């Protein structure tokens, strides 16, 4: 838009001169892409048609969707879904870093432990693990902390008191995710130049300090994009916890639809919320990537906010320039 303002202000008096100079030149026309326009039109037509069919569909009561979108139970379900995603990703990331470091350690015992963990939790279905944690009480009625093969006990409690559905869901999702995330973290750790580790050691940094302050911050740049992926995947996997009656978003919608038999409407409500949540998640990811990208690019990319402000100030200067040139041309005339 701003370009047009400038060109009408400046280029019009020049245009005749340009045209006479250009008579012997070959006019350069960029390649046209009519196919793109056709494809876009067809797609828009198809989408509108589909939306229309949804809107006119007598099997969907749109008012029901509107009614339940911000229903108290749904909102509570959304909050629980967010909490579960956050907590299980925190658990998974902590475990994953531990597993990755163990896997890369010189200690063969730790290496085998890490390998065995990944082997087991990656090798069995998530759904099975969720059911297992959910019905842990059937396997062990009480949980006891003590020394095996002796009568020494430090603490003991009813399994169903400690492992509530929320805890079971958290453990199932977090521990399963840790197995996948550990490979992501390991790839990140391996991506850091070994010369940096040697430099850190030569300065007297211990292996633990080197990992925390030198290697991990650099590995984060490689770890964050796939972990963002995993977080989105985790957000949707929380729906599986319906199986052990954790009252998260999908469980709430299924309970409501079991009563009012508006299955489709409530599935739309759930999908809309999942879409909103996954869209929102990309914002912190952008800022995290920016934070850990420091030093790799010669200049940091601007944040959307900074970009917007720069655009506004640019438009402002352009407009004032145009206003000034207009004023001078009018004065000349």
């Amino acid at each position, binding site marked *: 838009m701003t370009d047009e303002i400038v060109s009408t202000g400046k280029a019009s008096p020049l245009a005749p001169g340009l045209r006479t100079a250009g008579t012997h030149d070959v006019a350069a026309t960029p390649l046209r892409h009519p196919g793109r326009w056709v494809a876009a039109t067809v797609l828009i037509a198809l989408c509108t048609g589909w939306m229309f069919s949804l809107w006119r569909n007598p099997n969907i009561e749109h008012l029901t969707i509107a009614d339940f979108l911000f229903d108290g139970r749904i909102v509570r379900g959304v909050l629980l879904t967010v909490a579960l995603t956050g907590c299980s990703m925190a658990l998974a990331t902590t475990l994953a870093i531990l597993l990755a470091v163990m896997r890369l350690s010189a200690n063969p015992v730790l290496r085998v432990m890490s390998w065995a963990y990944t082997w087991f939790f990656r090798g069995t279905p998530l759904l099975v693990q969720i059911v297992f944690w959910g019905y842990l009480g059937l396997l062990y009625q009480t949980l006891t902390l003590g020394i095996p093969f002796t009568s020494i006990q430090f603490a003991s409690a009813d399994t169903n008191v400690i492992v509530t559905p929320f805890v079971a869901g958290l453990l199932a999702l977090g521990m399963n995710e840790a197995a996948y995330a550990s490979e992501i973290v390991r790839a990140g750790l391996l991506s850091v*130049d070994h*010369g*940096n580790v*040697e*430099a*850190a*050691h*030569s*300065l*007297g*940094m*211990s*292996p633990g*300090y080197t990992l925390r*302050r*030198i290697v991990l*911050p*650099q590995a984060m740049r490689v770890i964050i994009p796939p972990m963002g992926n995993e977080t989105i995947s985790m957000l949707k996997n929380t729906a599986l916890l319906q199986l052990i009656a954790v009252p998260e978003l999908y469980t709430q919608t299924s309970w409501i639809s079991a009563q009012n038999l508006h299955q489709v409407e409530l599935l739309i409500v759930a999908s809309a919320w999942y879409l909103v949540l996954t869209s929102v998640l990309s914002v912190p990811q952008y800022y995290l990537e920016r934070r*850990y990208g*420091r*030093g*790799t*690019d*010669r200049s940091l990319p601007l944040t959307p906010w900074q970009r917007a402000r720069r655009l506004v100030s640019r438009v402002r200067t352009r407009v004032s320039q145009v206003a000034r040139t207009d004023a001078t041309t009018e004065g000349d005339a």
Partner: protein
Amino acid sequence: MNTQAIDGPKPLVEARDVRKRFGANLVLKGIDLRVERGQVMCLLGPSGSGKSTFLRCINHLERVDGGRIYVDGELMGYREHGDRAREMKPGQIAAQRRSIGMVFQRFNLFPHLTALENIVEAPVGVARRSKADARTRGMELLERVGLTDRAGMYPAQLSGGQQQRVAIARALAMDPKLMLFDEPTSALDPELVGDVLNVMRDLAKSGMTMIVVTHEIGFAREVADQVVFMDDGVVVESGAPTDVISNPQHDRTKTFLDSVL
């Protein structure tokens, strides 16, 4: 044990019969060297002669397979139990390394930290100095290497020569008693070599004990107190630069010097 028997002030670095193998390949075949306090020793030799490996053995970046290396009378990386030497725990080795600075061929600056943060990291995090003190000292060191105006820049924004000077300042920030240089100018454009060598020359003048692996014969001739020529894992010849560089005794040294000069 024998260190006490040697007369006079103890050398800062003493290597005795140092041996190192990579697989079946014997890279150090028994190195004996001494560096006195305040001395500059330059290690010359063709690539693959074991000079860089020896340098890395001094601060235990490489584990020696035989022999002993003492720095300031302290056995590096091992604890003596009678005839045997048992390797130390990583934390103890880290503590030993704090008094030995090292500068690498590829700079190895921490890319996620600015020049000043690179310098301050170890004094604050390892030597537990206050942030303010470490920053003041860091700025002094940047001034010493002529880069005060680059304090806030990331390594990727600096030229190779500037990066290497920051790396020298970073090593000096731990107040080492010994500085190790592993081909510090080999990865630099020819026009940038001079700045780095100037910093090293000043450092030598200030009385720092230095061991320098280098191909800069001119620098070795001018700055070194002792020049050591290594080939195929052994010390072929050592002595004052006027002897080794200007008047080499061994054919191997002569052919090497002819090829580089």
